[in-house]
């Protein structure tokens, strides 16, 4: 299964972290730090896989890809295929690209919950549930609509209560 999905920028700041097994947040931070400490030492033009057992425990692998300033990292075990995971990063970034057109780090920083929404459409409980970025987008758009509807009604009711309250 997929154990975690992490986005870190090249300064080591986490931008998104999702662990599929319960992991206390202190441990999460520790893992993110140690992953970053390995990633930042990786020279250019090397393979995108890392043996993770030293930092992440037995039977764990890591695949990462650097887009501009961001590392996208998947941590997984032997039930997943390395190249497929690599593609999953691609699908995720592709979807982000469709969402924000010309996605940059700032988009990702400011759209924290949307990042989670997209991820949740692709992976659930450590299993891949969707690999088609079109379909992910479709679901994400529906969800955004639902969110807006409720937000709008809230706003109206709020201003109403302001007027009369």
């Amino acid at each position: 299964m997929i154990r975690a999905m992490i986005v870190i920028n090249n300064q080591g700041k986490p931008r998104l972290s999702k662990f599929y097994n319960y992991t206390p947040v202190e441990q999460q931070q520790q893992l993110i730090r140690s992953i970053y400490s390995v990633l930042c030492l990786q020279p250019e033009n090397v393979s995108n896989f890392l043996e993770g057992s030293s930092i992440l425990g037995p039977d764990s692998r890591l695949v990462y890809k650097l887009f501009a300033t961001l590392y996208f990292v998947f941590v997984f075990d032997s039930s997943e295929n390395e190249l497929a995971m690599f593609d999953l990063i691609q699908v995720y970034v592709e979807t982000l690209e469709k969402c924000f057109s010309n996605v940059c780090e700032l988009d990702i920083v400011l759209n924290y919950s949307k990042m989670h929404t997209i991820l949740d459409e692709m992976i659930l409980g450590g299993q891949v549930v969707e690999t088609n970025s079109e379909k992910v987008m479709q679901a994400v758009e529906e969800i955004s609509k639902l969110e807006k509807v409720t937000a709008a009604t809230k706003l109206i009711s709020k201003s109403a209560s302001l007027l009369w309250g």
Partner: protein
Amino acid sequence: MSGGGGPSLMDSLFQRTLDDLIKGIRLHLPGAAQSSFISKSLDEIRREIKSTDSQTKATALQKLTYLHSLHGIDMSWAAFHAVELTSSPSFLHKKTGYLAASLSFRPSMDVLLLLTNQLRKDLSSTNQHEVSLALECLSVICTPDFARDLTPDIFTLLSGKNFIRKKAIACLLMVFSQYPDAVRVCFKRLVDNLESADNAQTLAATVGVFCELASKEPRSYLPLAPEFYRILVDSRNNWVLIKVLKIFAHLAKLEPRLAKKVVEPICDHMKRSEAKSLVFECVRAIVSSFYEFEFAVKLAVAKIREFLLDSDLNLRYLGLQGLLLVAPNHLWAVLENKEVVIKSLSDVDRNIKLEALRLVMSMVSDDNVVEICRVLIGYALKSDPEFCNEILRSMLSTCSRNVYEIVIDFDWYVSLLAEMARIPHCQNGEEIEFQLIDIGMRVKDVRPELVRAGRDLLIDPALLGNPFIHRILSAAAWVSGEYVKFSRNPFEIMEALLQPRTNLLPPSIRSVYIHSTFKVLSFCLHSFLLPGKGVNSSRSNFVDIEPGFTYSESEQEFTETDHATSSSGFNKRDTFTQEAVVNMLTLVITSLTPLAESHDVEIQERVRNVLGLAQLAQQEISCNHDQKEKMVDKVDLKTSIIIRLINDALSEDFGPVSLSAQERVPVPNGLVLEENLSKLDSICADVQLSISESFSLVKPILLPTDGDSVSNQQNEEDSETSPAESMSLLAEHRKRHGLFYLPSDHNKNASSSFPPANDPNQRDNDVEDLVKLTDESLVLKRKPGSNRPRPVVVKLDEGERLPITVKKTDENDDLISGAVRDVLLGNEASLHSSNPSGRRKGESHSKDKVENFETGNSSKRRSKHRNHGKYVEDKEENSEKSKKKSGGRHKARRRADGGIDVAVQKQVIPDFLL
């Protein structure tokens, strides 16, 4: 604004949004400014989250979740608010609540109980995105309680809309692991979903779940093999196929006939597919589980070669990994590609280098170990420190594997160890120390070479400055002291042991040095004072004192010693002149006297021992010097007597000691070992560790009863004061606990019949590159009839270095597979009633099954494909299929039932497959 009271309207109007918070954090420099901003925001959040306005509350929770997930802020205190928001009618708020829950809830939280009803409500919501939220949350925070209470709800979703169904299936894994009984309810539906060819994602999720389950306990899923086989043949979705291949890799190990059937379609995929991920998965399956099929392995190796020659680094890395998987069964594949492997050793990519190193080590056999090690040492010298140590580490572990199984020429190996010590980055001192001493104890024939190598290390003052090799020096000092009789020039060793730079050593190692001084000193004095007297004659004095002691081995050893010394051209009489000995005594006394006041007890005590002996000897020998006529009486000097005793005590040989030796000592009658001592467990663990580490310091004679290194000291003192007594004690101990000692008699006899370790026939060609390793190295296994002489290596029966750890299996996994077996074998009495399948269908359906299975085989589905990434060419099943959906599903269901019924009659399964 609002004062100290409750949250006011103004608060909610001017509340910071998550965006404001993020921007604020970015404005403040990391460090104090940022953390004070965060704590200020936290105060705001604490206030806002209590608001009755759910919008304010949701925003506060959203901010808190962000801080929790990315800045590690604790939010367990807000758990109740998260639960509260999940019940909000607003989708946005609900989603905020669920996100907070799934990112922050601990399984032990009390508040979880409050969530059960809300989860149930949302699982049955008509809004599919609300169901998704609940499933996502459940998949992360699932507890046994949740799993038990919500299993029926999830069961319903397993046959619902595809969008939800795939998520429910993925969620099942967590539910099963928390509550194995859920298997009894949901398993049949899950199996039904193996037929959902109309939706690739649902099928992928289903197969994914089976893959996870089968990786833990494959046997239970063998009855489903026909289903998986059909998918393997029919499916064109790479995500699905990858998982099915993984399942078959697990199953094939259990059922060889299955392997025979499956290997063909796997090869077809391998030949046909453009997707590298699928090809690699096929390769991996073949080489790890189907390695008996020659044609398949050949094909796989050809694919590996393509990977290795690809310009894409990822593929090259995986190619090496594949090769590593082939290596144990088909080493020819590695040898065929050795150019690439060797070239990869100097790759820039550390991962690739490491894989290459592992591969090189997999090629090692007793024929080529010398050449491979030479090449690797060359690489180690050129590499960065980290990789250099990686190389050394793997050489050390490969060569020492199974008690130095592949080492034939131990002289060479000892010099290799010494050479490693001189590599500037070497950080494997501890392992090298262990091996030097271990070899010394196990391999008699190598001792002269060991002493020579030790001497070279000891006399080099530069090495003392490198703390990483202090441990190796410690071994060198111990070896030189213990086996000093093989030394060409003991005086030189004495000087090396006492050189001024030894003050750079840590006390523990320095005391080893000093103790070695003691051994060298007593050896020199013995040779000087009792030159004519063979040790045998001096020994014979003691025979009557301890009749129980057997001398056979000692005597033999000493004749060997004489042989060794005379052959090396070492003439005792010439070397041990009065002058040389007096000089040595002076050197010992002047160098060690300052240390007699050392703060380290270990050093102090040892120094005093040495000084006591040296001063006594000095007195008497210089006295003698004046009255030359009394020289003949050297033998009667007090020193001589003592020296004789000490030498006898020291000449007892060390052997390797089994880690469990102490445990095998029978408990004497009437001794209650565990009484009141249970609390000492932790301490005892330490002591046991120290036994294995203090090999160098402890006489094995004492080991079975006393593992502490201090005993050594006592041993010395005892032997100085009442040697006869201690010897007799030893003899008695040896007699009583004979089984804990190595069968040394036997070994020694054997060793004398063996030729010397140095093999004159050893090839010594200067092949610089491993690439040129001759094809002789293709001979992988050592031929039993090989006439290459190898010195005797003392081996104990059981594993010595590592205690065996028993692998524990997860109890839940057992429960799951137990439940699966129950379901598959038809114990359906307790099954959920909503599954219409009945057992009465049994026989007739298994016939159905055959037909369906056959047709499934032949009909290849056409589908439109869509490219995703580089590696997985994800081929979606087209929706045109969905026309046939309802009918197909029904049939599918029946087929699945057939499969299960088939499982009932175990005999029948293989028939479908083979």
